[in-house]
């Protein structure tokens, strides 16, 4: 039939039908949630959607699609006309039919071969007997429950057929492990052995009995045996009402995949585990406002969907072109540098710059999609789990309109699903457990998205049992994720975040929903792959929140450009924490060695250092200070700074600090997830917006690069993969280093160091003020200082600020008379207050860290804290706030 129709027509049908099916799912849940209250318009909407699918299918002669959608339509018509009341089993069947329709659409030419007999049969059952259950609502519950449970089994499977052929009678057995196994003080093994000795059990999905028992949740299985009716329950050691015989008639119907006949009268099955009718009522009582608002919002979404459908590859191409336009503009700017004699050209360039930015922005926007697209499927996911486990869970979505790039949406979908499954499976307690703890019977999972600092945060908030850090610690120690010493030292928050560590799973039991031992670490890996991060915050008994921090787009990222010799590389700005410039004279004190690895003393941590040259296999060099020619660097390690003649050259305080002097080290402090290290490079360049291009398949094994880009000057450069570089440097395995870092940190806490600014007023007198006490440090031209009487003032941000000369307050040397400029230290005022004044000094020497203790100073005066010795010089430590506040009081 495909030849009869234009391919595009079929394609159109598939796309449209998928959209219809996507809209049906939330609507069905809404109807179920609200019962009659919602009916009307929402049912109409579902009806119309399924009708469109049917129309298209029959036009294109896809018989299976048409058949199933026709039956769904008929059932919906009954519901719409009030002849059939919607209930959880009906919703189940409809939802499953939607799944089948999706399956058919996936390969539409083979759609007729998709097995949907079961769904059809159930739908037919509702079509035929539609009026009856609605009229007498009470007895409907039991058979519907049985049907529901019977329909969980695959009656057509080989195993089931052979079981049915051999065994008679056949029973439906329900097991509640908590009551039947644990409370009876027998082991799961004993139960399994006993059961196997009596007959053949068959579980839904072909699951093993042991696995189902281990999960600890109630489950049912079909049991083929030779035991008579009254003996079966006794032999299985189960209460009689849990074992019900399935009549020959029922089985016959089932194996012909038609469940039309009502289940035999002796099938007095107890209530299903989660009586859905009750749930619906409760939900309504708890959150009536939310439910009223929802249909309106959903209806609005449908009506506003008047958009143009554009092929994705076209958009991708458009975005690539826009990216190239940005690069071309950058290149043009570089080429135009120094051509200032062409004013009209500059104007043109500016215009082009503006238009380029606009195009780039709009094109990016076309690829942005609301995260609601991903969120939309979660109510269904949670509902299915909740029904399976007998839980009551409400899902609230917020921020569904927050938009991120399509590629990001695709990449967060799986990790988010995993988190939410975990949440529904492990975090939310059973209604009884919740009630016992004084919580509402129904648990809540809130999924929220919002913007924060140029990124998007997706938070999954539940009010479940929370994560017990103590349990995590024990489990992590047992699994060797952490050592007991580490465990003792870790904070609760750090412990909770261990759930993301590789090889760690908190699930004490394995269920078929989640918790197979891989999980949260995969979530973290995937989120980090796209430049995001994930964190968890939990309180025992109150609930857990998982935060995903994700970038808006993957296409254009700000990056820092760094160089090793002639090679240039880009480091994504999101992984750059800070840049540390270690000058030659400080190398000895700041760079050390721990177990064969170079480390940087950064504040009170030891940061492992990775030399990019080594990782990339580039010969290390340094530049000669005068000739700028590269010379081979033969030092085995960074901390080996050779003394001797070169160090004499270091008298260059006023010189150009950017000169690549051989002793200096430029270190980019990078972080990816929990890996943090210093990357030693030769040179640092500007930050630039780069368009990431994937690397060729030929380079897939090059772990240190994640992509390539074209810089403003037209060169191709590679983008460093921070995690890959760390892996190549074998950083993560280095436990020694970690221990050393911790020891160092604890030692540092004892001898506190503080960051100070060293300055002079008169030559040869050195003072220091703590950096934390300063608001600003500004260069001050002396001719801008105004006088009023003996007081001096400067214009500081629109108001006049009193200027205090150091020699006015303290018995120290005066400001050198020949200087035309000095520096103004503005102390941090009290919270909320404006600065009271500034201190004029002549020269800023350095910003250093020095030890906190000091001796009493030889001079006395306001603001003198004490004196200490730094590099052989006496330094007087001052409190700048005291200097100015005193001045103002006078």
């Amino acid at each position, binding site marked *: 039939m495909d030849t009869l129709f234009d391919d595009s027509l079929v394609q159109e049908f598939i796309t449209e039908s998928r959209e219809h099916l996507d809209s049906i799912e939330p609507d069905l849940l809404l109807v179920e949630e609200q019962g009659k209250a919602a009916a009307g318009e929402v049912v109409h909407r579902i009806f119309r959607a399924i009708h469109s699918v049917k129309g298209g299918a029959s036009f294109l002669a896809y018989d299976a699609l048409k058949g199933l959608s026709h039956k769904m339509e008929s059932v919906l018509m009954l519901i719409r006309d009030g002849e059939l009341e919607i209930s959880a089993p009906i919703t189940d069947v409809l939802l499953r039919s939607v799944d089948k329709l999706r399956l058919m659409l996936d390969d539409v030419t083979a759609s007729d071969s998709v097995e949907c007999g079961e769904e059809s049969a159930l739908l037919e059952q509702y079509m035929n007997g539609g009026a009856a259950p609605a009229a007498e609502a009470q007895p409907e519950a039991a058979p519907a429950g049985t049907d529901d449970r019977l329909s969980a089994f695959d009656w057509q499977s080989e195993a089931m057929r052979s079981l049915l052929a051999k065994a008679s009678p056949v029973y439906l057995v329900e097991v509640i492990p908590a009551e039947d196994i644990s409370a009876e003080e027998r082991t799961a093994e004993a139960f399994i052995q006993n059961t196997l000795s009596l007959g053949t059990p068959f579980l839904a999905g072909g699951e093993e009995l042991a696995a189902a028992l281990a999960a600890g949740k109630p489950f049912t299985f079909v049991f083929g045996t030779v035991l008579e009716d009254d003996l079966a329950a006794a032999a299985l050691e189960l209460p009689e009402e849990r074992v019900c015989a399935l009549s020959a008639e029922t089985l016959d119907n089932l194996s012909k995949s038609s469940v039309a006949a009502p289940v035999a009268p002796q099938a007095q099955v107890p209530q299903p585990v989660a009586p859905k009718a009750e749930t619906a009522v409760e939900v309504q009582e708890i959150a009536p406002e939310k439910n009223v608002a929802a249909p309106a919002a959903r209806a609005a979404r449908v009506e506003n969907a008047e958009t143009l459908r554009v092929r994705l590859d076209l958009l991708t191409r458009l975005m690539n072109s826009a990216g190239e336009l940005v690069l071309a503009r950058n290149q043009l700017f570089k080429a135009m540098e120094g051509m200032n004699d062409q004013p009209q050209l500059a104007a043109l360039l500016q215009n082009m710059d503006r238009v380029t930015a606009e195009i780039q922005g709009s094109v990016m926007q076309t690829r942005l999609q609301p995260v609601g697209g991903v969120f939309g499927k979660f109510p269904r996911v949670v509902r299915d789990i909740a029904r399976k486990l007998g839980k009551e869970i409400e899902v609230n979505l917020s921020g569904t309109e927050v938009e991120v790039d399509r590629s990001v949406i695709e990449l967060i979908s799986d990790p988010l699903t995993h988190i939410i499954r975990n949440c529904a499976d492990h975090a939310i307690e059973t209604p009884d457990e919740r009630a016992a703890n004084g919580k509402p019977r129904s648990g809540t999972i809130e999924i929220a998205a919002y913007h924060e600092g140029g990124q998007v945060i997706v938070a999954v908030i539940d009010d479940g049992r929370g994560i017990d850090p103590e349990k995590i610690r024990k489990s992590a120690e047992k699994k060797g994720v952490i050592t007991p010493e580490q465990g003792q030292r870790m904070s609760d928050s750090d412990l909770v975040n261990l759930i993301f560590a590789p090889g760690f799973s908190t699930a004490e039991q394995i269920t078929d929903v989640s918790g197979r031992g891989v999980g949260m670490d995969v979530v973290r890996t995937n989120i980090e792959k796209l430049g995001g991060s994930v964190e968890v915050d939990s309180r025992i008994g109150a609930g857990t929140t998982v935060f995903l921090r994700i970038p808006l787009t993957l296409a254009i990222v700000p990056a820092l450009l760094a160089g090793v010799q002639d090679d240039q590389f880009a480091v994504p700005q999101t992984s750059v924490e800070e840049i540390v410039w270690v000058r030659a004279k400080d190398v000895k004190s700041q760079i050390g060695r721990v177990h064969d690895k170079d480390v940087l003393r950064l504040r009170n941590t030891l940061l492992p250092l990775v030399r990019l040259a080594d990782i990339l*296999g580039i010969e290390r060099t340094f530049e000669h200070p005068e000739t700028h020619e590269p010379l081979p660097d033969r030092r085995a390690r960074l901390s080996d700074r050779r003394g001797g003649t070169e160090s004499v050259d270091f008298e260059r305080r006023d010189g150009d600090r950017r000169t690549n002097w051989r002793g200096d080290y430029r270190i980019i402090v990078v972080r990816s997830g929990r890996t943090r290290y210093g990357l030693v490079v030769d040179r640092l360049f500007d930050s630039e917006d780069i368009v990431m291009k994937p690397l060729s398949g*030929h380079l897939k094994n090059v772990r240190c690069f994640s992509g390539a880009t074209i810089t403003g000057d037209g060169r191709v450069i*590679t983008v460093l993969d921070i995690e890959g570089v760390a892996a190549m440097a074998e950083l993560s395995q280095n436990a020694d280093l970690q221990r050393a870092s911790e020891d160092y940190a604890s030692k540092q806490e004892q001898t506190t160091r503080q960051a100070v600014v060293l300055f002079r007023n008169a030559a040869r007198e050195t003072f220091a003020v703590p950096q934390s006490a300063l608001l600003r440090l500004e260069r001050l031209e002396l001719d801008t200082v105004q006088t009023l009487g003996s007081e001096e003032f400067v214009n500081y941000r629109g108001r006049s600020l009193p200027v205090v000369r150091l020699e006015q307050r303290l018995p120290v040397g005066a400001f050198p008379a020949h200087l035309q400029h000095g520096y103004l230290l503005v102390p941090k005022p009290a919270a909320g207050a404006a600065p009271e004044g500034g201190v004029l000094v002549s020269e800023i020497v350095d910003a250093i860290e020095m030890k906190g203790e000091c001796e009493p100073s030889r001079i006395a005066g306001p603001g003198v804290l004490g004196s200490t010795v730094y590099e052989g010089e006496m330094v007087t430590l001052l409190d700048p706030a005291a200097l100015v506040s005193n001045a103002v009081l006078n």
Partner: protein
Amino acid sequence: MKQFVTCEVDGCALCVPIGAIQEVHGIREITPVRRAPEYVAGLLNLRGHVITMIDLGARIGTERGTGPREQNIVLKPLEALRRAGLVSDQVDPELQQDVIGLAVDAVGDVIEAEEDVMEATPANLSGLQAEFFGGVVRLDNCVYPIVDVSRVIRIDQAACAA
């Protein structure tokens, strides 16, 4: 009658089917990729596209001379190559998005050859790895082995893993 472009790498004369070639460029800045397999010459910026350059000499096993490769033969995108029947459908899936170029020492003329002058690859292609060639063209007493594009662009898993 088929057309080929002759080229030279480390003193070996070769030819490439003209249908596989998108364009030829003279010397351009190629960014080497550290830690890449030896046969990858580096990355080339072609009007905003990043082209992965394969060093044809390193690939087919010639003895490397001195000096950089002076000519870059940029091949057509994979899809076009497939349509032209120059690569098989089983090419590595990782290469779907790639545009690949061949770095050579010199590019010569376009030659035309009748189908019947094409012969099976002789076993002794003077030290070259015969697997990279799909026959030879004989013209005016010269022999030009035909570069099998399909083979040359394939990912060398062993070299990548190293």
